[in-house]
Structure formats: structure tokens, C-alpha cells
């Protein structure tokens, strides 16, 4: 036992010493540190996602109303409705305490007074132009974290003024904390989306992290491989070898775990807003999961050390033979699987439907996973011909590079794989985003002035008369009332009724009939905006136009169209404030093209590019490490020759052929595959669209990466050759 313990320490120390003095020590140190840190953050992101979902659920239920049972005395009147801001829905809760002991909703410290509101920080700090601080009554306080599904949630509690109290229907409740259907952001993100997010995290973050970890484990590992082979030949068993390799990698891996932990800690202390996607993580949720988060650095440490210990090429000491490239069986499998996946993707994508969408996704992942091997195989087949050609032309750099490519295609596969997968992730992210945007509407459209010149206002039967609402509208706004005229004899909808004073009718290019008369206007002749804004509720019915005050025309709901003439921008926030405070607390205001829940999908789809970008950065790191690893071997073999001939230009030329060219070609091929696979899901009104701009940017990035790798490898090889000396002593 003592002997084995002393051997353990000896092997650990041996590994540590070897790593400090070995070739490429600094690069390998940095690679292992970075990969471990990234692994901690990636693992923590999984825990965070689960913790955030759990926290949201818990707080969602805590604020759910407990309805008063039949005969039970309610303590609070309660109702909620959907509000919209830039296409994203959020909940406005109407409350009216009835008793002194009425329980407060979570997150509130006191009941707002009549005509006051409590806003979530996201609304309280919203744009001044939206005037959230007055829209639901004067803001009295901010809702605390305990009352919000997530710290970034938009939520308002409003207590109507005495005048407005009866303007909408309110339920009697006895408290808060009821299981069952929740409201607010929780309704927009359903439980099954937790699985979807976890799958996205796995595909877009964990997979690249695994690639980075493997690249880091192999970076500059030639010295380690040699030591391992030597000690194995001397009779070292697996455990001893493992301890030596752990000793070599231990310090950077432990430091990486610490760095990863340091990166995660701020999320436990503060609510951190994720850039781009406008989502804030609740520190309180993550603190609940602190135990699981603490496992992330330990798990990353164990996984990284396991990779360092386990990923070794089989190597015999003193072998003088060039080994074949990557594992033959795996490569053969990948080569046959790639075209099968490609055909499957093309067939599945063109079928449509959710089942085939899943099949398409699996097939696409299969293509991206196997295509690097195909590229590696292609390179190894082409390389001997390239070498023959280079030799005929006297192209020394091309000759060296192509002979190296032919002998070691696996190296190129590693280098190219990162780039191809990166292009795959970016490309598929763009395709899925465009698919969701097509189906969900483009949020950018919402911000254009054109969409904001008309709004449809709907209020329930308890709504107050429209005169005060009319008076509260912003300057320049006009209003007409709408109503249904019932069914026609043939079963179709009857014409809609439009009623307003002459000036407002004319502002909408409608005729102005005499008092007591009405004029029919075909659907096709109606104002373009009116047709769009009212289509959901009035279809393509014609209009019966009559002059009169714009009042409630239907028995149940009141319908008003507020607009500005000649597409002048309409102050929608002011219209909303007027409706809430003068018409009904639960008035529904739908600006043109806004208000469809499907816009939520477009916002949710922003997670894809966000996670895709994170994964791509990780992959880019993997690519740098893989390229650098290749460079170390490359520079080592050329240094003596360069020192003797004094030809430093050979480094740049050889690096360009050996590293730059494969990267550039892989970039182009990756894009070609992206374009081909994209064909299956493009076209049609709801199809995805390939982005030519993205293709160009990716091509430029691939070219820049190729140039950068060439420059870096050439420069480092030249430096290395300056350090080279004979070693007879």
C-alpha cells in the first residue's frame, strides 16, 4: 500500500514535471484550462436551465389565485388579461382588496391604492414613451422577485379607480397559491419546452464543448504519448500511466474548474441578464440549485482528466512505421452513413409535418457529424495526387503538405471538423430562425411606423360609455365604432356596421350618409389598414356605414377602431392608457399586426442564435486548439531543415498548404452542404430561407480563419526554428 502510494505520488510528480518542460507546454496548459472552464459553464447552464424552470413553476403557483368557493366570502376581487408590448404578451392583473386581512399577492408589500399600480422592474424601467408608470394607474411600487416568474418578466398589478372598478368582470378569490394553470410568462413557455431547451443546450452547447474538450486533451499531447509508450514498455501498468497523465494535466484542469466556478458564481449572487435575448436569470433559483451547480466543476474536472487519460492513439515504442489515419471501422461507418443521412434529410425536409421535422433534424445532425470524416477521406485520397502534381511542378511546400495530409488524414479531420460543425450550427440556426420568423412574424415589422397607425379596441360588456375614452385619446387620433350585424340568410356573416361622425368616417375614406340612412361599402373598397386590423374578428365582410356617435354596437363587446389619417403614426401607448383608464380595465387594444401570440414564437426562437453563437465560439476555440496542436508537430519536423537552409518563407508556404487550404476548402464545403440541406426546408410561404448574406460572411470568416492559422503557424514555426539546436549532449 505504502509502495503504491509512493508510486502514485512519484507518477503525479513525474507528469507534473514533464508538463512543465515538455514541448508546447504553455499551449497545452491554456487549452486544458480553457476547455475545463468552458465545460463547467456548459454543465452549469444545464443545471441553471432546470433550476430556472423549477423556480418559475414554484413562483407561478404561489401567485395563482385561490378562487372563493360557493358561499365563501371572497377577500379580493381578481382578474387578469393579456397586454402586449412589441409583440410580446404579458399579464396585467386587476385586483381589489375587499377585507382588511386580504392576503397580498407575492412580491407586493402593500395594496396599491385605488387608481394605483405595482409594476415589475421590466415595466417600471421600460421606455418612457410607453408610459407604463401611468398606464395602469400611478405606479406605487415595484413587484419583488418573489412575485415574478423570472426577474425580467413583465407583469403589472393594477387597482382600478372607484369609477373604473365595475368596468370589467372580476372573480372573487380568498388568497394566493393555487396549483393549476398559471399566468404570465409561464403560459408562454410550456413545460415541454424545458425538454426542448435542454435538447438545444445539448446540441448547441454541450456537443461543441465535448469537441473542445477532446481537442484540448489531444493538443500538444505528442510528448505525453511518447512518455506513456516509454513507461508502458518499462512495465508501467495502466494505473501508473493514468496517474502520470493526471499529474501532467492536473494543474490546468483544476485551475480551469476554478475559473469556471468563478464564472458561475456571479449568477448565484445577482440576477444576470443574458445579452441579446432579454432574459434575466433569477439568482434565487440558482442558489436553490447551488448543490447541483457545485457538482459542475467536479464533474468537469473528472471528465477532463478522464479524457486526458483515455484518449490516446495506440502507439508502440520504437515503431518506425507511419500509421494509417483515423480508426478504419469508424471512418468506414461514417463514410457510408453520410450519404444516407443526406438523402434522409432531403426526403424528410420536403415531407413537412412535425414527425418529419424531427426526422430532418436527426438526419441533419447525422450529416454534420459524419461529413468531417468524408472530408478527411477525400483529402487523404486527393493528397497523393496533389503530391505528385506538386513534385512535378517543383512546389516544395505543396509537396510536404500533401505528403503529410496523405499520411495523417485524421489530423485534418480534427481541424476541419470544428469548422464544419460550426458552419452546421450557424446554418441550421439561421434556417430554424427564419422558419420560426416566417411562422411567427418578424418583430422588426412591429417597430415600423406603418404598423402603428391603427388599433382595434375591444372592451367587454361592462365597459364604460365611449365618450370619455374618445376624449382621452391622443391629439389627432380618430375613432369609429364597429359592430356585427348578425348572420345572413345563406349562413355567411352579415356586413359589419361602422358608425362615427362624418369627419371620422371621411378620415377613413368612407362615405358620409345622411342622418338615419346608411351606405354599403364592399370589403374591397375599405381602407387597407381597416381590412387588416379587423380581419380576425370581422373577416372579409362588407361594411354598412352610418353616421352617429361611436358607441357600443354589439350586445356583448364594444368594438372601436382608433386611427390616424394618412398613415400618420398613432401614439399606441396613449391609446392604451386612455382605454385602461376611461373605457375598461381589461380593454383589449390590438395595434395592426400586433397581438398575435405567434410573435412570442419569434422571440423564443432568439434562444437558437444565442445558444448557437455560444456553441460556435466554443467550437472556434476547439478549432484554434486543434490547429495549434497540429502546428506543434508541423513546426517540430521542419525546424532543423529551416535552420540549415535559412529558408523561413517555407513555413508560411507549407502552413498555407497544410493548414490554411484545408480550412478554406472545409469552409466552402461546409457551406455547400448547408445550402443543399437547406433546400429541403426552403420555399413556400412558410418555408425557411437561405441567407446569401450569411453564406458570404461565413465564407469570409473561413478565409480569415485560414489566413490567420497560416500566419500563426508560419510565424510560430519560424520562431521555433530559431530556438532549435543540435542535441548531442
Amino acid at each position, binding site marked *: 500500500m505504502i509502495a503504491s502510494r509512493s508510486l502514485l505520488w512519484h507518477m503525479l510528480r513525474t507528469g507534473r514535471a514533464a508538463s512543465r518542460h515538455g514541448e508546447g507546454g504553455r499551449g497545452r496548459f491554456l487549452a486544458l484550462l480553457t476547455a475545463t472552464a468552458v465545460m463547467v459553464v456548459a454543465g452549469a447552464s444545464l443545471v441553471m436551465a432546470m433550476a430556472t424552470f423549477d423556480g418559475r413553476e414554484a413562483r407561478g403557483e404561489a401567485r395563482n389565485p385561490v378562487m372563493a368557493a360557493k358561499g365563501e366570502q371572497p377577500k379580493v376581487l381578481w382578474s387578469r388579461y393579456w397586454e402586449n408590448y412589441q409583440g410580446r404578451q404579458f399579464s396585467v392583473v386587476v385586483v381589489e382588496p375587499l377585507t382588511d386581512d386580504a392576503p397580498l399577492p407575492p412580491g407586493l408589500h402593500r395594496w396599491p391604492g385605488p387608481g394605483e399600480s405595482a409594476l415589475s422592474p421590466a415595466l417600471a424601467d421600460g421606455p418612457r414613451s410607453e408610459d407604463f408608470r401611468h398606464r395602469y394607474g400611478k405606479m406605487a411600487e415595484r413587484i419583488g422577485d418573489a412575485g415574478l416568474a423570472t426577474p425580467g418578466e413583465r407583469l403589472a398589478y393594477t387597482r382600478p379607480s372607484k369609477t373604473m372598478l365595475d368596468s370589467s368582470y372580476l372573480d372573487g378569490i380568498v388568497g394566493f397559491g393555487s396549483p393549476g394553470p398559471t399566468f404570465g410568462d409561464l403560459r408562454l413557455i410550456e413545460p415541454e419546452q424545458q425538454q426542448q431547451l435542454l435538447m438545444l443546450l445539448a446540441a448547441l452547447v454541450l456537443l461543441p464543448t465535448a469537441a473542445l474538450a477532446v481537442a484540448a486533451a489531444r493538443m500538444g499531447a505528442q510528448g505525453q504519448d511518447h512518455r506513456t509508450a516509454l513507461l508502458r514498455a518499462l512495465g508501467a501498468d495502466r494505473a501508473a500511466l493514468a496517474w502520470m497523465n493526471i499529474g501532467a494535466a492536473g494543474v490546468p484542469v483544476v485551475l480551469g474548474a476554478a475559473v469556471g466556478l468563478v464564472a458561475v458564481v456571479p449568477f448565484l449572487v445577482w440576477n444576470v441578464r443574458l445579452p441579446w435575448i432579454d432574459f434575466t436569470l433569477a439568482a434565487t433559483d440558482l442558489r436553490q440549485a447551488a448543490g447541483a451547480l457545485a457538482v459542475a466543476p467536479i464533474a468537469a474536472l473528472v471528465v477532463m482528466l478522464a479524457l486526458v487519460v483515455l484518449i490516446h492513439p495506440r502507439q508502440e515504442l520504437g515503431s*518506425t*512505421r*507511419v500509421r494509417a489515419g483515423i480508426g478504419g471501422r469508424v471512418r468506414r461507418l461514417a463514410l457510408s452513413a453520410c450519404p444516407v443521412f443526406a438523402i434522409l434529410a432531403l426526403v424528410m425536409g420536403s415531407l413537412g409535418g412535425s414527425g418529419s421535422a424531427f426526422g430532418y433534424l436527426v438526419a441533419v445532425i447525422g450529416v454534420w457529424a459524419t461529413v468531417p470524416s468524408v472530408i478527411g477521406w477525400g483529402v487523404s485520397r486527393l493528397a497523393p495526387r496533389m503530391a505528385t502534381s506538386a*513534385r512535378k511542378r*517543383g512546389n*516544395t511546400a505543396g*509537396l*510536404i503538405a500533401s*505528403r*503529410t495530409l*496523405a*499520411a*495523417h488524414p485524421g489530423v485534418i479531420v480534427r481541424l476541419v471538423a470544428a469548422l464544419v460543425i460550426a458552419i452546421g450550427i450557424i446554418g441550421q440556426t439561421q434556417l430554424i430562425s427564419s422558419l420560426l420568423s416566417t411562422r411567427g412574424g418578424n418583430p422588426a415589422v412591429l417597430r415600423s411606423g406603418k404598423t402603428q397607425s391603427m388599433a382595434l379596441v375591444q372592451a367587454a360588456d361592462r365597459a364604460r360609455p365611449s365618450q370619455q375614452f374618445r376624449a382621452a385619446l391622443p391629439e389627432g387620433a380618430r375613432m369609429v365604432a364597429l359592430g356585427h350585424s348578425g348572420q345572413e340568410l345563406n349562413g355567411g356573416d352579415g356586413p359589419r356596421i361602422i358608425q362615427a361622425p362624418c369627419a371620422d368616417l371621411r378620415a377613413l375614406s368612407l362615405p358620409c350618409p345622411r342622418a338615419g340612412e346608411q351606405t354599403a361599402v364592399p370589403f374591397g373598397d375599405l381602407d387597407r389598414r381597416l381590412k387588416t386590423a379587423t380581419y380576425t374578428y370581422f373577416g372579409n365582410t362588407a361594411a354598412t356605414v352610418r353616421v352617429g356617435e361611436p358607441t357600443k354596437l354589439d350586445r356583448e363587446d364594444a368594438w372601436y377602431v382608433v386611427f390616424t389619417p394618412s398613415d400618420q403614426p398613432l401614439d399606441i401607448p396613449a391609446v392604451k392608457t386612455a382605454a385602461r383608464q376611461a373605457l375598461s380595465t381589461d380593454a383589449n387594444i390590438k395595434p395592426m399586426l400586433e397581438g398575435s401570440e405567434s410573435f412570442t414564437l419569434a422571440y423564443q426562437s432568439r434562444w437558437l442564435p444565442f445558444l448557437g453563437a455560444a456553441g460556435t465560439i466554443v467550437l472556434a476555440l476547439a478549432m484554434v486548439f486543434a490547429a495549434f496542436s497540429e502546428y506543434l508537430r508541423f513546426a517540430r*519536423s*521542419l525546424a*532543423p*531543415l529551416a*535552420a*540549415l*537552409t*535559412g*529558408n523561413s518563407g*517555407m513555413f508560411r508556404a507549407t502552413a498555407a498548404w497544410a493548414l490554411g487550404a484545408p480550412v478554406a476548402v472545409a469552409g466552402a464545403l461546409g457551406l455547400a452542404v448547408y445550402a443543399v440541406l437547406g433546400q429541403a426546408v426552403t420555399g413556400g410561404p412558410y418555408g425557411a430561407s437561405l441567407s446569401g448574406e450569411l453564406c458570404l460572411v461565413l465564407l469570409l470568416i473561413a478565409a480569415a480563419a485560414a489566413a490567420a492559422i497560416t500566419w500563426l503557424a508560419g510565424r510560430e514555426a519560424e520562431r521555433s526554428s530559431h530556438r*532549435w*539546436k*543540435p*542535441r*548531442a*549532449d
Partner: protein
Amino acid sequence: MEPDAIPLSIRGLDYQIADRKLLSGLDLTVHTGESVAVMGPSGSGKSSLLSLALGLIKPQAGQLRVCGTDLVGLSPAQVTRLRRQHIGMVFQFGELLPELMPIENVALPALLSGKRKEPSYQQARRLLEELGVPVDGVATAELSGGERQRAAVARALMESPSLLLADEPTGALDEDSRNHVADVLFATPGQRGCGLLVVTHDRAVAARADRVLYLQHGHLVESAGKDGR
């Protein structure tokens, strides 16, 4: 270069790393057609001597003339040019690119110096055939250790150097291969009219040289060479 310049002439060479003096007032001359072996314990400065002769490092004092030109005062570019023109080097492990064919490895220095490919490949082929090394159709990594080392000798001879340096050229070989490589190496000065400086631990190899010198305490001490056996 002067027509009958001495391939290597070293006078009063001092070299130290930090506080450790490796070479102290060292003198050495390698004449055309002559082979000199330098032996000595590990760390005695044999590698440094080779690096100085190659112009990879600079001495603190002394003269180091290759074919009549003192390397010490030259710029790095001038040293490189001189090295390319006059010095060939055989390394302990050959330092050939394993993926290339032997002929490609041997032709490489000439091609990198800007020579035309046809005569370069022709000369490489001739040298490999003379030294009994497979020329083409097999990767260098597939050669035996002895073949690789003879290929390294061929590569060192490509530019017809005046001074041939060898760094433990047989250190990694079995006895038969060692003898074969040593035969080729020590025949070179006589056949090609160059000077040969071999650094080795192997007494049997060193004994083939015209002169054997021991590097001790920064000085070279003459010992009996093959004439004195």
C-alpha cells in the same frame, strides 16, 4: 571562399551559458579531406560546439572560420548564406520528414535554396543510389534506421558542402547499421574533398576518424585517431 580555404578553423573560442563556461580558448582545425571526431562526457559542450560551427549561437570570444570566413561578425542572413553554401549536417535521428519519399527529402535543401527541380532530383537520386538507399515509391518512415541515416547523409551532401557536421549520427542504430553508416560517413571526406566533424559517444565510430579529440574542461585534447591505433 578562398580556393584552398580550410573548412573549419577555430581559434581561442570562449562560450559560456550563465556562469558555466563550456568552452575556454578552444582551438580546432578541420582540413579538407580530414575527419575529426569529438568525444566527451554529457554536458561537456559538444552540442554547443556544433551549434557554434553552424552559427546558431555566438561565442563570447574567439574566431570561428568556415572556409575562411569568420562567422562571428556576420549578420544572421550572412551566416545563413554561408551555412547553406558550405555546411552539411547529419542529425542524430536523421530529422527527415517521414511522410516524404527519400528522394524528396534529399532534394529538399536544394529546392529550398531555389535550385531547379530536375538537376536537384537527379543529384538526389544519384546520391541515394550511391549510398544504397531506396530512392522512391516508399515513404521515408518505412525505411530502416540505417537507411534513414544514410538518406540523411545524402541530404547533407546535396549542396556539396566543404564542411560536414554530424551529431551522434549512429546513436540510434544497431551494430550493422552503425557500421554501414560510419563507412559511408568517414569515406566522404576522401571522396568529396570536404572536412568532417563528428560528435559522438561511440568509441568505435570515433576510432574511424583521422583524429579523435576529447572535450574536457572547455578544451579539446588530442587523442590517437585511426593512424594511431
